[in-house]
């Protein structure tokens, strides 16, 4: 197939209109933000959308705002390129910055939105993996209500989120990183533009030389991105030395449920999860504050 199937096209100018359309047309409808994932999949007939609801004309969704020591938020139309180049993100959320930076196509980053990336809900999303460690919270609008979904509750399975049929994500809030938090992001891939074989993001909050809290997120090693909570528990309150790190990495690998596909084997993904978690935790011992 070389062309898209016909569809009804809408350009609502308010969020309320957009979700109203979602409610009307249900699962035959899709939101169009950047389109960088949606359009190719529609062309390949992997997604069928009889009703396409563009949010590109809704004003006020492309914000990226920092609040003085109160975190950062960005809207549904904040492009990956803008996020990558936003000083506050490089400074305060270097793990997220690293995850976006290593997306190799500049065109993709100009067109693609972080929210769109999250809504695809692929377990291989580097951006999702990084955000999962940052306490991100998605603001969601539906026909009759607004709500917030912590990112840990957003991904249900491959390509499925916890959004209801009439809901769209309007933005993401990131709390200000706790004092003493250090982050790292690592992944492995075939070529630079390929989806990761496995990706790991960690955020460790240090206090008095101990690991107060560890957040370990793994991508492409389970049906969704996930937090290795057992590994995190093993580290909480402990001193982060190489023995602890090794142990945590092993536990984290046990929490993965990887598959064999064209990019890698289950065995390799499990093994590399352990390696990358170890290396990422080691990085937090070296990296500058935050």
């Amino acid at each position, binding site marked *: *197939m*070389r*062309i898209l*199937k*016909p569809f009804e096209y809408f350009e609502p100018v308010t969020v309320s209109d957009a979700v109203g359309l979602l409610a009307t047309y249900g699962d035959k409808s899709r939101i169009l933000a950047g389109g960088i994932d949606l359009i*190719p999949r529609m062309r*390949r007939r992997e997604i069928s959308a009889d009703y396409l609801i563009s949010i590109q004309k809704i004003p006020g969704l492309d914000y990226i705002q920092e609040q003085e020591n109160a975190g950062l938020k960005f809207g549904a139309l904040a492009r990956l390129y803008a996020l990558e180049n936003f000083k506050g993100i490089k400074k305060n959320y270097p793990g997220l910055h690293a995850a976006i930076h290593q997306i*190799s196509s500049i065109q993709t980053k100009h067109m693609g939105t972080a929210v769109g990336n999250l809504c695809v809900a692929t377990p291989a999303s580097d951006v999702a993996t990084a955000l999962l460690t940052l306490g991100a919270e998605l603001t969601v609008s539906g026909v009759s209500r607004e709500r917030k979904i912590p990112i840990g509750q957003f991904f249900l399975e491959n390509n499925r989120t916890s959004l209801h049929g009439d809901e769209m994500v309007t933005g993401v809030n990131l709390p200000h990183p706790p004092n003493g938090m250090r982050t790292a992001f690592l992944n*492995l891939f*075939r*070529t*630079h*533009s*390929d*989806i990761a074989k496995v990706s790991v993001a960690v955020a460790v909050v240090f206090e008095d030389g101990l690991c107060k809290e560890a957040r370990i997120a793994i991508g492409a090693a389970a049906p969704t991105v996930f937090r290795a909570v057992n590994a995190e528990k093993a580290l909480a309150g402990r001193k982060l030395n190489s023995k602890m790190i090794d142990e945590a990495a092993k536990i984290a690998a046990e929490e993965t449920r990887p598959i064999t*596909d*064209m990019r*890698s*084997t289950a*065995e*390799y993904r499990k*093994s*590399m999860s352990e*390696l990358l978690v170890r290396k990422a935790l080691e990085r937090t011992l070296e990296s500058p504050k935050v």
Partner: protein
Amino acid sequence: MTQELSVVGKRLPYWAAQDKATGAAKYTADIKLPNLLVGRVLTSPHAHAVIKKIDKSAAEKLPGVEAVITWEDIPHKLFNPNIQDITLHMPQAVIKDAYIISEKARFVGDVIGAVAAVDEATAEQALGLIKVEYDILPAVFDMAEAMKPGAPLIHDFAKNNISMHMNFPVAWGNVQDGFQQADVSVEAAFQTSKQHTAQLEPLSCIAQFDASGRLTVWSPNQRFFIVRSKLAELFDIPEGRIRVISHHMGGGFGKMADMGAEPICVALAKKSGKPVKVQYSREEDLFGTWTREAYIESGKLGARKDGTLTALSMSILVHSGAYFNRSSATAIVTMGSFTGLYRCPNVAAEMTAVYTNIPCSGGSRGYGVPEAYYLLEQLVDMTAEKIGMDPMAMRMKNLKQLGDPGLVGLPLETPTQEKCIRLGAEKIGWQEKRSRKKEDGNIRRGIGMATYLDVSGGQPFDIQDRNIEIKINEDGSANLYIGISDMGQNLLGASAQIAAEVMGLRYEDIHIVYGDTDYCSFDAGTYANSGCYQIGNAVMKAAAEVKKLILERAAGKLGVTPDKLDIRDRRILVRDNPSKSVSIGEISKDCIYNHAGQHLNIFGKASFSPAQNPYPTGAVFADVEVNTETGGVKVARLLLVHDAGRLINPATVEGQLQGAMALGIGYTLFEDYYINPRTGVLESNNYNTYKLPSTLDLPELEVELVEEPTPSGPFGAKGVGMSGIMGIPAAIANAIYHACGVRIREMPITPERVLKALKEKVV
């Protein structure tokens, strides 16, 4: 040769670069015609199935549908899209086992029908309305399974799915004796992979019958004259009633020397009575055009303890896939390269081609030679290690020398191989890096090499005839007629440089007319590195004829005999009295507008059939880093030292070599044509899943050229196109072994495979 050259040897802009840089260059998909219909193919969703019944009626009735064709609508003539049956001197090497539309589904993606409609949407809808009744058969995707007794039979004639077994006909000596004489012998087996050319332009074609029934076909093809003859045979149309136009191609890489969408496009144009354009999607191109040949290749090398070879033997299982295509042609090249690279008194080789229900293997850049060296050059390294000898030194001991028969039996013309090896070794720091102490850390560094001989065309096995014409315009400029297409190799520019040099014109004085069977004479096609060497020679001959006519005419004007004249800078000058001269423009104008009735058609034509085959040669050195924690392989340095004879245009030669090196890296490390082992479906069916290297995935591609003119080449040039890839996989594999002691049986050499091998090695 110390002649002063003013055009040859210069880094002049590629011919048509301006058109390509401005978007003006039209590729087949860009061409529009009035009433052009959209052609789409219907492919089988099953890997192996009998087609019981096809009901076209609903599709035919859809408004806007102008033709729906299935097997019953096409000529029932078996053919092989590699169309080498009419050019190879040994035609029995080509098995014709396919129809334009398949009568049975033999792989997921096999073409079983086609439609032509007024637009894409209607064509797609029509495809959906064609009702096909299949009798699904069990399928096999693995050669071993396919050869087992009782395996599903894919082609009726091929018992156990074996289409052909061949002993290499050019074998010599006695390998049994040879192995007995050996002090050491080493064996290895490797599985090469189905790299896809993945050229940027997806397959396309336009076919149009005019009101008198004359057929015009626009098709990007490396051998479009042969395509014309094949279409003539398939459709019972005399060649003279078929015009094939092949101008700009978005990549060829050898794959486009096969017939592509032409037969189906012509069939649709015939049935509909309207012009039809077929454009494959990227997915259709990846499963519907053929990959590099996939082998399980095993070999044995015997040598004395001083490193001299006593015996070489090789056995290839060719994984043809669903149809035969080039299974024997590439295997013969592989066997010839394996046995022909070094001096060896006893050689033997054999091949067996096996059908399975997967998309076919064909031939791509290298055409079986990189595969041959992948096995041979690793055997050499393994042997050198066993003997305790530097592998480079072992190679030197066995190189072919001047006058020795080379890969295709014809003699070597220049002895540059050793020079290339030594130069490369020095540049990369071979001695120092080979004896480098092994590091303790997780990153292991290693250096490996491979050497190669390549060809300048398919002679003496294949028709390689060239025909060139040159006419002179009123102003003294020239039209150069070359019957080839342009896939970016700038053979057209190089030809213009050669013509200009001989005729004393400037590069910009040459206008090229090309790629059209109506305007150009027969050309055998651009593949197997034939272009620069063969067409260059033909151009030289034709230009020499033109020069002769001009000099004769000018001699009259200048009052001397022609042998006293020189031609350069668009002027003819008396050698001993250069102020006495006349411009080529004056001469040509006078030949055309001559009131004394002394009209002369200044026209040169030449035919060329190569009697020699000078061997491009060189060596590749790879410096790699293996991460023993991840299995990841990083090529830190890749150096190619190459002899292409005289460089007609150095930028062109460098560009060809660099591109081939990149292709080689993709082949060795990244590109995985991933077929689902249960369903036979190609899952890596677009660029997001079939990964080509980007700017970030390649090391610096270093090219060092050793320019030694070869006696039979035009100004001493050899062929170029494929050479850059020949030694890449072997050099990288040898470097990996040096770094961390493992050889990987399967390609691509992925981190998964390396890590697994490292773990098993420890155990």
